[in-house]
């Protein structure tokens, strides 16, 4: 009976999800019901003998869940759905037919790691992708985050800025805003160490601010000194003063050497 109910709910969910614009609220409630159903059917974390068709349905539901969380701007929920999907993508890889949405989902996860500045995790995830290395550059869903990461690392921030419209799927755009926030902070920290001072106008272009007011708020947050009359931003210089000799450490090290020498001689 449970499967019967699941099937109707699943169909309903698909309809609600495919409708344009999709009914987020309805999807949410349906997903919650479906998850309970999946747990009851032992499909959420599949164990033992399970029907292949059921697994595909379960995977579909979770994938919709991933996209729904992005559309509902709920990143923690995205995290949960993604880790649940992970079982389907890795452990059942050989038995299940490949999913169309798999790489879109994986790409989304990569972007998320990028926006949260978890570069190490990004690379670990990238490394464990079930793709041969040359396909990384051809798969549109994966190529996008990979390129973004490369430009971020190089410092070609303007390319990142220009690429924000080229997202391969609609859901990617959700992350663009937070990504821009990350970039801005990156650029700001670069400017702090690379410039003594900067004209307001140029700073606005460098930081991709369309107007000066946005820049002024941002400058206040970072604690920059803004001279409005001269139209200049001055960056507080970080300590250039004399480096102190670490006396304590040197004494400790020398005592340790003396002790060791005593043992040897």
């Amino acid at each position, binding site marked *: 009976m449970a499967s019967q109910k699941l099937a109707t709910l699943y169909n309903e969910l698909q309809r609600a999800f495919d409708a344009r614009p999709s009914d987020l609220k309805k999807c949410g409630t349906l997903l919650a019901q479906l998850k309970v159903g999946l747990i009851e059917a032992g499909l959420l974390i599949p164990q033992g003998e399970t029907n292949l068709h059921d697994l595909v349905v379960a995977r579909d539901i979770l994938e919709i869940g991933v996209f729904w969380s992005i559309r509902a701007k709920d990143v923690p929920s995205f995290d949960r759905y993604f880790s649940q999907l992970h079982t389907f993508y890795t452990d059942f890889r050989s038995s299940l037919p490949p999913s169309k949405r798999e790489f879109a989902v994986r790409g989304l996860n990569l972007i998320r790691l990028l926006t949260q500045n978890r570069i190490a995790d990004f690379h670990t995830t990238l490394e464990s992708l079930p793709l041969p290395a*040359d396909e990384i550059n051809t798969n549109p869903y994966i190529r996008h985050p990979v390129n973004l990461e490369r430009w971020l690392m190089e410092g070609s921030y303007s390319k990142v800025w220009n690429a924000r419209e080229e997202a391969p799927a609609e859901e990617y755009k959700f992350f663009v805003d937070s990504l821009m926030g990350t970039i801005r902070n990156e650029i700001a920290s670069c400017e702090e160490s690379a410039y003594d001072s900067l004209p307001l106008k140029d700073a606005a272009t460098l930081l991709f601010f369309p107007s000066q007011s946005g820049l002024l708020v941002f400058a206040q947050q970072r604690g920059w000194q803004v001279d409005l009359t001269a139209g200049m931003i001055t960056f507080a210089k970080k300590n250039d003063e004399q480096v102190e000799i670490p006396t304590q450490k040197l004494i400790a090290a020398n005592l340790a050497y003396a002790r060791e020498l005593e043992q040897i001689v």
Partner: protein
Amino acid sequence: MPDAEMVKATDKKEDKKDDKKDEKKPESKPEPPTPTQEIKANIALIDRAINDLETRFTHRVLRSLTALRKRINDKVLRDAVEENYPKDSAVKNSLLSWLPPAPPAEQSMEVDTTSEANAAAPLSPPSKPTSDPVPEAEIYLRLLIIHHLHTSKDTYSKSIELSHETVDKMQSMNRRSMDPIAAKIWFAVERSYELGGELADARPMFLAAQRTASLRHDDDTQASLINRLLRGYLHYNLYDQADKLVSKTTFPASASNPQYARYHYFLGRIKAVQLNYTAAHTNLQQAIRRAPAAKTAPGFYQAVHKLFVIVELLMGDIPDRGLFRHPVLEKALSAYFDIVKAVRTGSLSEFQTTLNKHAAQFEADKTYTLIVRLRQNVIKTGIRRLSLSYSRISLRDICLKLHLDSEEDAEYIVGKAIRDGVIEGRIVHEKGWMECGSQKDGYGPEASEVFGRRIGYCLDLHNESVKAMRYPLNAHRKELAAAQDAREREKELAKEIQEGDLDDDEGLGDY
């Protein structure tokens, strides 16, 4: 497969040592012992190890394992089992059941072997043992059989079966003196699974065994198992899990050098993927230092160096030119040498063509994604070179020299390089140029820190070698006895002198 090759290497080394020993006394032993005799001698050594509670002998046996491995065949194993076990022992029959029955063709060969056996007769007395040797010997023989099963494709599944039975047996016996052999068994088990193509299936078993081993402080097995697990994870690119395993376990400090070398290599891999290049660099360096000499373990040596070169490049250093002239590495690293050249010149286009040219090899080495990351380093090295040679350079020139797309990009890139500490300098935006600051002098506290680290390393090395010295049990007693003797002799001497004095006195008295 650095693992397998390395083992071979250590054994080769051992082989040489044996050869030398043989050369020393050519009259008494004109030819090296036959494998059967060697197995017999090894079993005697194991027996001695158990009786003397001295694992050193077991280790000695195991070191000769791979040299021996190449020389065994069905007959050798059968003979070894026959010779070392009494006629109707249950263990013998179970061991023999894993070997194919003696083919009739062997009868004709018997003629050759009997003469050989006769020649060797004085060395190995033909008397049959009356009781079973220690259980460790049985496991040792099983280990040999598993390795033998690896040599042919048809017996892979059989080797998995036997490994299972052996592991069960090992665990039910639960003898501490078996630990060193057990560690080798695990290696053989992994090999069985790998050859059978089911490496992932062995993971739960390894994990369970690792838990038990760490509870029993069984260092040999633990070290071996951690490496097995890491290798399995990395084989399937499961860096997350591998990292978690590393953070949740402690690698036993008493592990042998080859195990340490492997462990450091795996750690280096994980750290490199996680962008922690400094840690990766230290680990790989350790792996190189701990690994057996280049000639004896070329596979491992090459694999480590491939990764090492990439990590060094990622750190912004250029590896030594001499490294690529090393006879063992020259051929294997040629693709990497091209990459190094591209990075050194800081030319993105050259880098890209080299990358495309050698893509297949890099992918096989699992370094492709790491090398792709080098792109930013190509740029960084370019900027660094510029900053060293110019005191002031316009952004436009930077853009031209490094083949960047736009001046805007160049500004961001230089800004990032300054923040990341790649170069010292600043950008003057109004004038559109970069001013390069002076280089740091070498007299800061960093110098003393580096110096301190080196001293620490040397002291550690000294202490470790002192700790590693071995003294035979009760050897000091002999010295004590000798000292006692000397003292007694002294006393006697003194007495004699005294008596002599008396004699003299008497004599004097006479006169």
